[in-house]
């Protein structure tokens, strides 16, 4: 099981306080850019009812799901406040604005 860093694009491709999607055979990954220019990647599927988190409003280091307002931490993937649930986080590397995500082929196969 090896970690491959796969390039996904430049940080400027993502709007500030916004997100873009990366498609994988295992489903979509949402890549977020916060107001402070930090980048996070999490599974694009709310633990509540599967809502697309990439479409939510980004505030601080969190995103609010567009379907039912679960607030998910971008750092831990966990639901904040009174709600419970967790999504997978994916490591992101940012070298001079060039973004890559850690892509574990073995983990992907296992997940399928």
């Amino acid at each position, binding site marked *: 099981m090896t970690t491959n860093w*796969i*390039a*996904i*694009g430049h940080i400027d*491709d*993502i*709007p*500030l*306080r*916004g997100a*873009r*999607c*990366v*498609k*994988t*055979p*295992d489903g*979509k990954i949402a*890549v977020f850019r916060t*107001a*402070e220019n930090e980048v996070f990647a999490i599974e694009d599927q709310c633990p509540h*009812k*599967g*809502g*697309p988190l990439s*479409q*939510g*409003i*980004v*505030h*601080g280091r969190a995103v*609010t799901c*567009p*379907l039912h*307002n679960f*607030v998910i931490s971008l750092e831990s993937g966990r639901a904040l406040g009174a709600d419970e649930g967790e999504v997978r986080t994916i490591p992101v590397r940012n070298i001079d604005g060039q973004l890559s*995500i850690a*892509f574990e*082929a073995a983990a*992907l196969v296992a997940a399928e």
Partner: protein
Amino acid sequence: MTNLGAQKLVIIGNGMAPGRMLEHLFEQAPGLYDVTIFNAEPRVNYDRIMLSPVLSGEKTFEDIIIHGDGWYIENNVTLYKGHRIVEINRQARTVTSDHGVTESYDKLVIATGSVPFIIPVPGKDLPGVITYRDLDDVDAMLLAAQSREKAIVIGGGLLGLEAAAGLALRGMDVTVLHVMPTLMERQLDPAAGYLLQKAVEERGIKVITKANTKRIIGTDRVEGIELDNGTIIPATLVVMAVGIRPNAGLAKDAGLAVNRGIVVDAGMQSSDGDILAVGECAEVDGMVYGLVAPLYEMARVAAAHLAGDTKPAFVHSDTPTKLKVTGINLFSLGDFADGDDREEIVLRDATAGIYKRVVIKDNRIIGTVLYGETSDGAWFNDLKKKGTDISAMRDTLIFGQSFQGGAPLDPMAAVAALPDDAEICGCNGICKGKITSTITAKGLTTLDGVRAHTKASASCGSCTGLVEQLMSLTLGDAYNPAAVTPMCTCTELGHDDVRRLIKAKGLKSIPAVMQELEWKTSCGCAKCRPALNYYLVCDWPDEYADDYQSRFINERVHANIQKDGTYSVVPRMWGGVTSAAELRAIADVVDKFEIPMVKVTGGQRIDLLGVEKEDLPAVWADLGKAGFVSGQAYAKGLRTVKTCVGSDWCRFGTQDSTGLGIRIEKFMWGSWTPAKLKLAVSGCPRNCAEATCKDIGVICVDSGFEIHFAGAAGLDIKGTDVLGLVKTEDEALEHIVALTQMYREQARYLERIYKWAKRIGHDEIRRQIMEDHDKRRAYYERFVFSQKFAQVDPWSERVSGKDKHEFKPMAAVGFHQAAE
């Protein structure tokens, strides 16, 4: 949504007792039952005690709703409105309604309440003779009151006097007939009854005591009443308010034990182990009840038993009575008949109109009547309940609590001195300790919060002052009665303050607002950012740069997100009018993009559901070629203007309603508003466009255009109110636009027109829009200015490449034919 494994609970009746029972049940045993309610009244659960303020005009029906439609949805309760149960089949364990719906039950609760007693005199069935029991009766009285003619109320008890006062306030000439020598003789002694009669008469209401009705006169409808002594009193409305009796017929037919009411044990269990009864229809230990406090106690006991806790038992207790006629203060409790073994202490102050009487037996209070000054009611109630020996304070007892021990005459001190178990809210049986401990435990700072958590002052509201005093005592300076609810956890400021400060300080960006108003978070949250973005768009249409990242996804991508992450697309159809070419273009788009569902909306247009986000720009491009623009079906903004066909086609149409609707829609499309805005124009009062449940509606009449506003047909249902009548289309447009702009500038984000209007007052809105011509013109012009920047079709912008990143994935990885 059915809850597998849950037992089926069916409730017959949807009044205050079963409503309260369900609140307790959902708290104690959520999910234990699938609940179905059959309500003979075609509406939700409301506060029946408050019908009198609705009759007098001091409250509206919406004010007294206990559970709105949303509550039933949230709690998964099936409510059949307007279904009267006609049969209980105990063998099959089913009930059947008059509309033929049959439902089976594991547990059945009968809460059929009571029926008004009709005195059996000739003429009792004439039109114009009504009872006073539910909202339909109030509506009937209000309708009759429009005539400003004569009304007779039979019955000088609590209900009759409240009805009489309400009808008098509505402009009717009212006479009260009471069979006993003094009013409210069951609650008041003759002296207090006399004072009450004087106060009632001062309101212009005639009172005739010892009045026996012989017959009701009239041929096609009621014309008057003849008394036993031959007196004839003319009237066009007769209200019978002579008492109620338990409505137990259904239970009797089903073979349950019925005496005066449905016989139940202290656990609310009837003679059938799976059937309970609560409320006015139930008889416990030989007693039936009509005041809310014991009914709520029944509800609490029944809920516990349904939840599996069989310990709680119903215990009888006296309930204080209060009359809800504004300006008449009256308190009555317990037994106050004269007797050899009883003593009484009486205080009279004729000038101030005060009468107080305490009845004592064995040095303990057994009854109290207070008239004119009732603030010591809670204290007397407490002394009576505890059986306190009053011999030590006998000489000063009647002067009240503040006089004891030389305490200062300060109402706060009086409340502070009450013991923890003193009852504050009689309707709900809530004592002082429960209120203060809940305030502390839950960190409550608002009256609404206290009402939500404890129910204190949430029914008749007469103890609101006491509850507020308790809040001041418990919270000290932290309690500010005018306290505002903050916008969200990022700020202490409420919406109104934020809106005011944005204008006053000239704040023109979200970071500026957050900096100047000392936001507690760095970049807000999903609650405050969309609100701030709207306020800034509204207040600075030419200067503010819309912050798309602060918009909800629907407004960012100009389509409606669906549960599976696909989108729905609704093109605008002006006034609901379309053409063969438009329909053909829609059909082609559906085929080309394999759109799975096409649906006609309630707003007279067509919804294309299940469009992939990546396809949106291409779908819009094809629709755009046929002349379609965005229908903004996703926007907190102008949605649709529904129309009927009007004078062009309809034989009843009085004006060109279709033309006016299209004109309004073309004028107002693209505008952002605090919440969605739906309009309609009907060509005649038959109202085929359903304009009277819209945010703004127009009913065309021969003499012009009647403008309506503040309707609702969603979680809440509310008919519109009339704003005013104007003569021309131009005026109609100007008034509607001005009203919209006033709403845009003043409402809180996500607040629909009807909620905003209720908050600031319909009369104020009428004054500004109908009467103040300069103000109306200024609103109109500000709207027109703002439209210069708002009327850009978002779809064609995006077809031309705007926000391209929104519609494309950033990358695709891990596939064999990976992009990189």
